[in-house]
């Protein structure tokens, strides 16, 4: 809904607070309003529960010379009001999802996050960023952050986590300001695509929004509330409604394209470049919204940054991300760096069907008044690690994994021929995703990317055999059982195809 309002010369964005019932949405908005010195308006309440929304209008900050006007709206959490919630979420430029950190509430958080994802998947234009405001962190049994992160991973939701205690005001402003940054990333993308309108906002006040909702619902939900269903509605009654539908959508949809943004932080070592973080300026990360979220996750985590043999830098973050920068990827001039970033983003976009989704690139101050290009790549299980993980198993398991990895390797070789540049083929660089094999290594910079390489089937198998030398001693220990397994597989339908047959023969030769 972001729009430039010419009457006030401001950019109007909407931040929507979402979450399960009783997670702390209204408390968060009220606390935020108190801190910002702005009043919160709630059109109707029912025993302290939000029925329509909470509304907070705040103007603060600047975006490209214009004031930023934030329409801050919280949704009603009750399942009965799911259509109202959906309508409000569809208008968001960024979402603060208030999650309840108490262990019993985790299931509700998961369900509502699934529904949120379903709604946001239907929103056109640049992605809507999500901040997971992990509330009630003062509870002694608060769900650990790692568990929350795993839940978000399982839901394939890229979200920055900010801890909060809404009743004490802790973490509320931080979550809000980060959501504003994500919204501004979206605004920048809308503007770049020519999709940012200039007009008086259709919804310019809480009354406007209330009228709009009432008009759209034609009184149906008010009737549900008046009938007393509200208090007795439970989440498991959502069968066939928004949440279950959205969860199904989430399960069948692909991961969003990753986006990035970064700011440099001093590392305290004279030789080391500053590490990028989530405070990088808009326009210096790609993709713009999700990238900033990735940087938020990695920022503040210790990075073991080391020089590569070629002079570049490599860092591992929490065993979840790897950070890469070429020796020459440093620029004295911001605009030169930005131009290279754009080229690199294009390279990523053109290879998006081949590469793993969770990655971002960023141009950040290196701490010495220069700008360095980085890429952050999520650590995914490689074919090598899959094979290594099964070597102590049965001959059947070894044969199955070996063959599935070999097939993925050769398929990847074939697909790499269609890449816009050469991507190194190796067991460490290829992983298996639900949609097939994917390149999981870092991408060369646009300036250094060699032309694409064509792999014939025979060349790919030759390369695979060289890579598989490390398993040969183990395979020979189980030679007879493995040969029997491979023979069994060879008798299965489809195994008689020429390339498959060749692959099986070469694998058999390894034993």
């Amino acid at each position: 809904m972001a729009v430039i309002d010419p009457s006030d010369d401001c950019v109007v964005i909407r931040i929507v607070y979402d979450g399960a019932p009783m997670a702390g949405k209204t408390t968060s908005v009220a606390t935020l309003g108190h801190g910002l010195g702005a009043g919160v308006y709630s059109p109707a309440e029912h025993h302290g529960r939000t029925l329509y929304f909470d509304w907070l209008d705040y103007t603060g900050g600047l975006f490209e010379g214009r004031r930023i006007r934030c329409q801050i709206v919280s949704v009603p959490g009750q399942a009965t009001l799911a259509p109202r919630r959906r309508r409000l979420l569809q208008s968001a430029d960024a979402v603060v999802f208030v999650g309840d950190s108490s262990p019993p509430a985790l299931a509700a958080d998961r369900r509502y996050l699934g529904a949120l994802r379903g709604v946001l998947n239907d929103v056109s234009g640049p992605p809507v960023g999500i901040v997971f405001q992990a509330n009630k962190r003062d509870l002694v049994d608060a769900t650990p952050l790692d568990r929350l992160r795993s839940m978000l991973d399982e839901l394939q939701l890229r979200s920055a986590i900010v801890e909060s205690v809404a009743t004490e005001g802790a973490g509320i402003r931080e979550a809000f300001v980060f959501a504003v940054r994500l919204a501004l990333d979206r605004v920048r993308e809308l503007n770049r695509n020519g999709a940012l309108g200039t007009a008086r906002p259709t919804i310019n006040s809480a009354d406007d929004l209330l009228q709009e909702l009432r008009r759209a619902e034609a009184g149906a939900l008010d009737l549900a509330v008046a009938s007393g269903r509200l208090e007795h509605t439970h989440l498991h009654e959502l069968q066939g409604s928004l949440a279950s539908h959205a969860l199904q959508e989430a399960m069948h949809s692909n991961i969003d394209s990753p986006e990035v943004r970064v700011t440099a932080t001093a590392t305290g070592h004279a030789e080391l470049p500053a590490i990028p973080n989530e405070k990088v300026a808009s326009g210096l990360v790609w993709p713009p919204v999700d990238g900033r979220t990735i940087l938020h996750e990695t920022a503040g985590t210790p990075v073991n940054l080391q020089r590569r043999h070629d002079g570049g830098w490599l860092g591992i973050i929490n065993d979840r991300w790897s950070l890469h920068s070429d020796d020459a990827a440093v620029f004295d001039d911001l605009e030169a760096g930005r131009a290279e970033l754009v080229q690199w983003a294009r390279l990523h976009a053109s290879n998006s069907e081949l590469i793993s989704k969770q990655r971002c690139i960023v141009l950040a101050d290196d701490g010495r008044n220069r700008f360095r290009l980085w890429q952050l790549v999520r650590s995914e299980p490689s074919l090598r690690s899959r094979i290594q993980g099964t070597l102590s198993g049965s001959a059947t398991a070894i044969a199955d994994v070996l063959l599935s990895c070999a097939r993925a390797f050769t398929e990847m070789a074939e697909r790499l021929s269609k890449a816009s540049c050469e991507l190194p083929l190796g067991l460490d660089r290829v992983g298996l995703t639900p949609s097939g094999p994917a390149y999981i290594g870092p991408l060369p910079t646009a300036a250094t990317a060699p032309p694409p390489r064509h792999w014939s089937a025979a060349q790919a198998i030759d390369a695979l055999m060289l890579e598989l030398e490390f398993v040969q001693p183990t395979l020979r220990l189980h030679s007879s059982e493995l040969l029997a397994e491979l023979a069994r597989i060879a008798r299965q339908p489809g195994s008689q195809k020429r390339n498959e047959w060749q692959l099986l023969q070469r694998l058999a030769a390894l034993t």
Partner: protein
Amino acid sequence: MAIEKSLMEAIAKIEADVNGVIATAAVDLESGMTLASKSNRGDFDLAVASAYNSELVKQKLKIMRALNLNVALEDMLLTLSDQFHLIKLLPGGSSFLYLAADRGSTNLAILRNAVNKHCAALAA
């Protein structure tokens, strides 16, 4: 967690050390949004001041870059006829503290000293 809390504590400590503080805010440099704020005067619009001062800091950083000054910006002091305005870059460089004080009630040395002392304790 509690970034706002630590910022508010720093603001309170500065106020305790300095007379005549009109308003103080910790500001996100990129967006100009306040991360924490406290105003002692109803007619002082801290949100507006924070937003436009973020532009001021960005422009100064741009100037330094244009001059190839390979150094850090620590603070900016502005003297008005009846007020001091002090902008102090916070650790990490992505946010700053903005403080307006009554010129007749304090002096620059005390002001700067108090701000430096309490901002140094803030984490990057």
